[in-house]
């Protein structure tokens, strides 16, 4: 990635579409906004839950890569302690 900076002073991921994997089984895809004491703030977020079934998470991400991010909620805050991994959507490796 080029590392182009569009918003000086913001988090390096600000404005980027990321995949956030949480310890509660949620996989959240949205635009990274910021990180503060409340947690990681995502905007225009699609959410996949582990209870949706095994194997469906990769299908959800494949569908997202092809058809775009489904907006389930406009704003989501994930507590920092619940965040397992944050990866840019375009860099996410599917099995």
């Amino acid at each position, binding site marked *: *990635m*080029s*590392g*182009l900076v*569009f*918003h000086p002073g913001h988090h390096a991921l600000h*404005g*980027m*579409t990321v995949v956030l994997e949480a310890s509660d089984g949620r996989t959240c895809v949205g635009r990274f906004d910021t990180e503060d004491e409340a947690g990681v703030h995502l905007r225009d977020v699609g959410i996949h839950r582990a209870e949706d079934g095994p194997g469906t998470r990769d299908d959800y991400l494949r569908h997202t890569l*092809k*058809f*775009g*991010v*489904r*907006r389930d909620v406009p704003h989501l805050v994930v507590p920092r302690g619940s965040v397992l991994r944050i990866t*840019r*959507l*375009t860099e996410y490796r599917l099995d």
Partner: protein
Amino acid sequence: MREEMVRMGAKELLSGGDVDAILGDQRGTTLVFVNSVCGCSAGSARPALALALKHTIVPQQTVTVFAGQDLEATARARQYFSEYQPSSPSMALFRDGEVVHMVHRHQIEGRPPQAIAADLMAAFDKYCVTSSV
């Protein structure tokens, strides 16, 4: 921003009627550029499109709607590729009325214009060549 689009050869669609006139009964190839005021558009998407439109093979027409400004035109345009989630900036390449290639915002963010243009030109090479008999 609007002048920049026109200079590179894109036609502005300002109303739902404008959109229908172009996308309603399509023959050939059309690129729809969903423009926006964000940094992704200014830093990557518009320069990428300008580069790509200098390629030897390009869509027969390139049109643009401005998300957040021309609301009716943008909403109407998105109805023509409603299977895709809305994002801006984004680009939809149509051939004979069908979307054959889509560039989402997440494929634009943080990428240099040259890389996005290369992807676009590959799509132009694949879908915009007219067959000769």
